[in-house]
């Protein structure tokens, strides 16, 4: 297993955000985490990338516990987090945003190659590489946020609601790219409210309800599950 999370409990002040959550992510493919707004999906990703420390439980990446590590050290280990709401740096240009993604890398030559690769995934970013990120549309900012994460040369990609607030056409484009990236050998954890979209590109899924894992299974089984159909797929 690439990522193993055991019995995670997360509390903010007195509010419980995650209760006894265990999730496993294999070396390849996309694992999705479904759930309504406020179910605790983002909290889970924030624990993995070290922004939030759990009250109890463990997170292991390649067998090594991440609990004692800072967010910077976790990036070094190969985890790249595309946060909710994209969070690109608005005053930096597109290219500067991408290069900040490679902040910890020293392999100059490979950085240039990866920049080219990101531009080939997202031609629109190449066209606008000198434009400041604040002038970009929501979809373009999402592409930039994903591209920025790829620039870290990660071993695992964490994607938090990449479809949020985007027009259906743009969502399709983003999903297409994510599945292309994953087929290229990049494992990913996809957190989504849009369940049908998430299940369409995932191998395995977890359903988070009231801060706990309510259901898990192979994506095709989840698609056929009555509860999932009623609660998340609209019939």
């Amino acid at each position, binding site marked *: 297993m690439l990522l193993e999370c055991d019995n995670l409990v997360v509390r903010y002040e007195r509010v419980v955000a995650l209760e006894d959550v265990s999730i496993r992510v294999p070396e390849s493919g996309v694992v999705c985490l479904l759930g309504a707004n406020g179910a605790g999906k983002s909290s889970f990703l924030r624990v993995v990338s070290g922004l939030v420390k759990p009250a109890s439980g463990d997170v292991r990446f390649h067998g090594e516990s991440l609990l004692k590590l800072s*967010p910077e050290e976790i990036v070094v280990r190969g985890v790249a987090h595309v*946060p909710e709401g994209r969070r690109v*740096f608005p005053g*930096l240009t597109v290219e*500067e945003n991408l*290069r*900040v993604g490679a*902040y*910890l890398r020293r392999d100059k030559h490979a950085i240039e190659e990866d920049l080219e690769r990101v531009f080939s995934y997202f031609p629109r970013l190449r066209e606008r590489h000198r434009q400041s990120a604040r002038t970009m549309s929501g979809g373009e900012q999402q592409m930039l946020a994903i591209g920025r994460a790829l620039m*870290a040369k990660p071993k695992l990609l964490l994607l938090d609601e990449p479809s949020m607030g985007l027009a259906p056409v743009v969502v399709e484009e983003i999903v297409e790219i994510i599945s292309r990236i994953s087929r290229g050998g990049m494992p990913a954890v996809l957190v989504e409210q849009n369940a049908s979209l998430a299940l369409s590109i995932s191998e395995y899924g977890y359903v988070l309800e009231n801060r706990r894992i309510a259901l898990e299974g192979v994506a095709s089984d989840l698609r056929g599950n009555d509860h999932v159909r009623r609660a998340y797929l609209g019939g």
Partner: protein
Amino acid sequence: MHELLLQTFLNATYAASYIALVAVGLVLIFGVMGVINFAHGELYMLGAYGVVAVYVGAQQSFLLAVAVGLMFVGLVGLLMERALFRPLRDNPLSGLVASIGLLLILQALAAIFFGVRMEHIPPVTQEVLRFSDGVSLPLQRLFVIVAAIVLLTGLWMFLKRTRFGWALRASAEDREAAQLQGISVTRIAQLAMVIGAGLAGVAGALTAPLVRVYPYMGHSVIVTVFIVIIVGGVGSLEGAVIAAIAYAFVHTFVTTFFDGVVADIVGLLLMLMVLVVRPTGLFGARDRA
């Protein structure tokens, strides 16, 4: 009349130079740390006392004195990050209060070590550039103008062309997203404090022979700089430079043609006007959380 205008122009350029150095440092620190450093005027004061100690006291060269001022005040900035702002990182308001406390301590220390009388610092050179009748620029003032242009251009290149510069700007815009790129916000905070404090120290050191040096000299500077960063837009480096130039020109011209008190009033009115028309300042970030 023509000469007077030209002379006032030169005076304003000089004033804009050192105000911009102090203001840009303050904005840089605010951007990265989220703290308004009230002790910034005292960092300027310490730079001036660096010249008192090294140039007047130890009889070393002025250039060495400026370098010592820069490094010493940069170090003070580093210590401030470690001792005050880092422990108080999650509460910008207490950082601000702590910096007010530090302001008083630094003033008291300067008074203990150097006394409260004004220091007389002999100018490095009596040389004056004369352009025509009645228009002149003392070389000492030219130093300040040249240093400000060189340092601010250098800072600009650093912020726009280097990975540390990108990381610093990224941290100022979104600290958490910067962490997710592997940027250590502590390192960047240290960097911002050294640069911001160092710029204030350099400004103090360079202007020391031209102003009255005493433990409370930071006060008038910080008031001016606060007006400048509010007009420019708190958090905007470009805004700080442009507002420093605008303020220095308005203030110097009004002082010359009316008097200093009227100039202070006009400066404050200018700030109020900007706040009414554009509460974020002329170049204030629109999308800062």
